[in-house]
């Protein structure tokens, strides 16, 4: 990966990380927060702004894709990769820092993460699916 591509990838990853932190704090998804909620509401956008400031102030960025710049397809692919990495890192780090948050899984989707961390919620869901599948298999084989 060239320097420009790496810089773009880092911009997207860091900026996405900040936006995710803000969005989770705004939506009161406590299980996904890395910092106290009020701090996250400030730190998230600050990280995003800092990422843009670093990207644009470090070196001139108006470069055509015929030189060192990125074409549309590369931009889209690196954007998706950057967001994916930021999301994955966020889910893992927030699960580690909120490991004791188990919660009661009364809701599905993101609502389940209001008081529970991602990894333990996902593991519990996988366990439920596994037990349900085993039960169904046993019923079929005995019937």
């Amino acid at each position, binding site marked *: 990966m060239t320097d420009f591509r790496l810089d773009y990838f880092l911009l997207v990853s860091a900026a996405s990380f900040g936006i995710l932190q803000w969005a989770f704090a705004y939506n009161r998804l406590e299980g996904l927060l890395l910092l106290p909620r009020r701090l996250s509401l400030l730190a998230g956008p600050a990280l995003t702004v800092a990422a843009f400031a670093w990207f*644009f102030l470090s070196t001139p960025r*108006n470069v*055509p894709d015929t030189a060192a*710049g990125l074409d549309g397809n590369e931009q889209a692919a690196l954007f998706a990769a950057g967001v994916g990495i930021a999301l994955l890192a966020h889910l893992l780090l927030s699960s580690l820092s909120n490991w004791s948050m188990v919660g009661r899984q009364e809701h599905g989707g993101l609502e389940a993460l209001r008081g529970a961390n991602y990894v333990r919620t996902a593991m519990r869901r996988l366990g439920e699916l596994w037990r349900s599948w085993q039960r169904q298999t046993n019923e079929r084989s005995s019937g």
Partner: protein
Amino acid sequence: MEILAKADERALLWLNGWAGRWPWLDALAQTVASDYLVPVAMGLMLLALWFTGGTPWDRERRQRSVFTALAGLTMASWVVLELNKVLFRPRPFQTLDLTLLFYRPVDSSFPANPAAVVFAIAAGVWLKDRRSGTALAAVGALYSLSRVYVGVFYPSDVLGGAAIGVATALLSALVLRWLEPLPRLLLRVARAIFLA
């Protein structure tokens, strides 16, 4: 037609006439016109839309707007790509005496691909979420204006691009309605892994 072309040229010359007077305004326009500021910011806005919403119903509405925006921008890029095969308009800096504040793109000036993409995103979101869609359209308008200011597009190029963007977003909304089991299935999968 001649009158419209003259008006288009005059509007460009007037707007680009401000370039080179105030270094801070030039630097601001160059940054806003960059390939990396507004497109990335709009992508991040879509990411924020996906994860916010007061209620699950509200969140689903926003997530569906993200689907429409993504389908719209894909379609808009394709339409511009196809049009560029049959239509070529030289860039304004090639035919007029302008203050160029940007690199020299070599593709067709009309229709403006950046305007098509940002307005496809804005219109796609606006169909389901008026407030966020309006904010995105304002950012898109600033982006398009900055591209004219730095001398790489005529005003009619960005208007044409914006029209294509809005049209493809409307078409995408219809297509997604026809494909309805698909968006619902994607949302169910995302909900099952706690990401929607």
